[in-house]
């Protein structure tokens, strides 16, 4: 005796069966009604404007699902896809585990990583690179190429942010053009006194007529920039020079104590950001505008590339480096590691500040 259940369509068993078969549930009646109603509304209001959208909307929203459900072959294929995907995963896992079996046992003494590389770094590191801080010697001398790649990543990241967010600095060009036009107009009217007076007024203080800042039109600095906080300004006056000094200390002592290019550059970049937050973009632009940024960033990367090229050339040809290593432990020692640290630090500081400035304002 079988019992016919009421409300079978909503029961768990039916839904589970539909799920297993891979059918998509058919649309409910009132849902379709509602859809048609909405389509009619849209038709009335926006017929003329977007005809293509209406054509899309006129079709049955569930047509695809229905057609897909009719193709029972697809269900079989879907099973096969599942099985194949599973098999692929299992195969890859098996291959990886097989590879693990070929590796030397964990912690065994006679693996190369345990007895050759680290020992070499620790024993000969100071001799060969002239650094006290072995980590710096490793990342800047033994693995110089890797660090060069990291610096390139920073450069490319800042460049792509600039491409995405850089606000075009038009006002400068506009200002000069306008000035020329004004002069021309004045000359045309034989009113040279006015033109001269204007030129005299403009030339001594170029920043008045050709603003180096580029705000979106109709927007002043006061609208986008918050009011400067006097407490923050007074503290920044004391702290910012300290931060710069500390960053330089970390940079210059990269081969003697923990630190180096990346951390020192981050400290200097943080100092720049603090100065900017306290005194605003107008003050920061006095010593760090777009031109300085471009020069420092591109210049330091190019110099670094030159140094790396020198390393590669001497290393590949078996030539000894002519740069003396100096006395172990002195500030000026360890060959090219000190300049590399400085260059990397400049690069990192520029990148940090550029991210801050670009995300906050869109330009420098």
């Amino acid at each position, binding site marked *: 005796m079988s019992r016919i259940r009421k409300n079978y369509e909503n029961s768990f068993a039916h839904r589970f069966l539909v799920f297993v078969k891979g059918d998509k549930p058919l649309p409910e009646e009132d849902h379709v009604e509602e859809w048609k109603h909405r389509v009619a509304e849209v038709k009335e209001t926006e017929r003329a404007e977007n005809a293509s959208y209406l054509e899309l909307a006129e079709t049955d929203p569930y047509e695809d699902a229905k057609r897909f459900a009719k193709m029972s072959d697809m269900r079989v294929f879907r099973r096969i896809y599942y099985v194949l995907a599973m098999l692929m995963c299992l195969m890859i896992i098996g291959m990886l585990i097989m590879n693990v079996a070929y590796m030397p046992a964990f912690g065994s003494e006679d693996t190369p990583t345990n007895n050759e590389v680290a020992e070499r770094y620790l024993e000969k590191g100071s001799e060969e690179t002239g650094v006290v801080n072995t980590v710096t010697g490793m990342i800047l001398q033994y693995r110089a190429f890797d660090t060069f790649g990291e610096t390139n990543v920073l450069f490319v990241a800042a460049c792509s942010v600039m491409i995405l967010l850089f606000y075009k600095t038009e006002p400068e060009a506009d200002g000069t053009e306008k000035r020329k036009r004004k002069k021309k107009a004045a000359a045309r009217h034989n009113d040279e006194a006015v033109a001269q007076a204007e030129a005299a007024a403009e030339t001594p203080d170029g920043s008045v007529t050709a603003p180096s800042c580029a705000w979106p039109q109709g927007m002043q600095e006061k609208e986008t920039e*918050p*009011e*400067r*906080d006097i*407490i*923050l300004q007074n*503290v920044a006056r*004391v*702290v910012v020079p*300290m931060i710069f000094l500390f960053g330089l200390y970390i940079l210059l002592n990269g081969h003697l104590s923990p630190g180096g290019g990346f951390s020192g550059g981050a400290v200097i970049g943080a100092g720049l950001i603090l100065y900017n937050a306290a005194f605003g973009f107008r003050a920061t632009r006095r010593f760090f505008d777009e031109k300085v940024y471009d020069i420092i960033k591109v210049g330091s990367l190019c110099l670094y590339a030159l140094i790396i090229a020198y390393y590669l050339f001497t290393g590949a040809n078996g030539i000894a480096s002519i740069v003396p290593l100096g006395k172990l432990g002195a500030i000026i020692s360890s060959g090219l590691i000190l300049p590399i640290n400085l260059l990397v630090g400049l690069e990192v500081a520029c990148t940090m500040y550029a991210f801050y400035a670009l995300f906050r304002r869109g330009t420098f």
Partner: protein
Amino acid sequence: MEWVRFIIGSLCIVCGLLIALIAAFGLFKFRFALNRMHAAAMTDTLGILMVLLGLIIMRGFCFDSLKLALIILFFWFASPVSSHLLAGMEVEISDRLKDNCDVEETERKGGVQ
């Protein structure tokens, strides 16, 4: 002498840790942002002071102690200012400021950041 220094230093460190613990408790206990900030700023000033002072006492008079003292100085500069800026921001944008604390209406020139 060494023992006395060690005991005093460790007492200072334990004191700082207790303060940090109380601050962490307050951070989760309070509901209003300004109250919670008060609790959080405790760690940055008093907690750090006690812990680093303990370390200085244990270390004695040398270059490392000077570095630790500079760290204390930096934190005492930086932490209150950042708290001040955050509090100003909270006052500017909070909708339920009057529900949570007494607000005295004054003529204010401009606003905090």
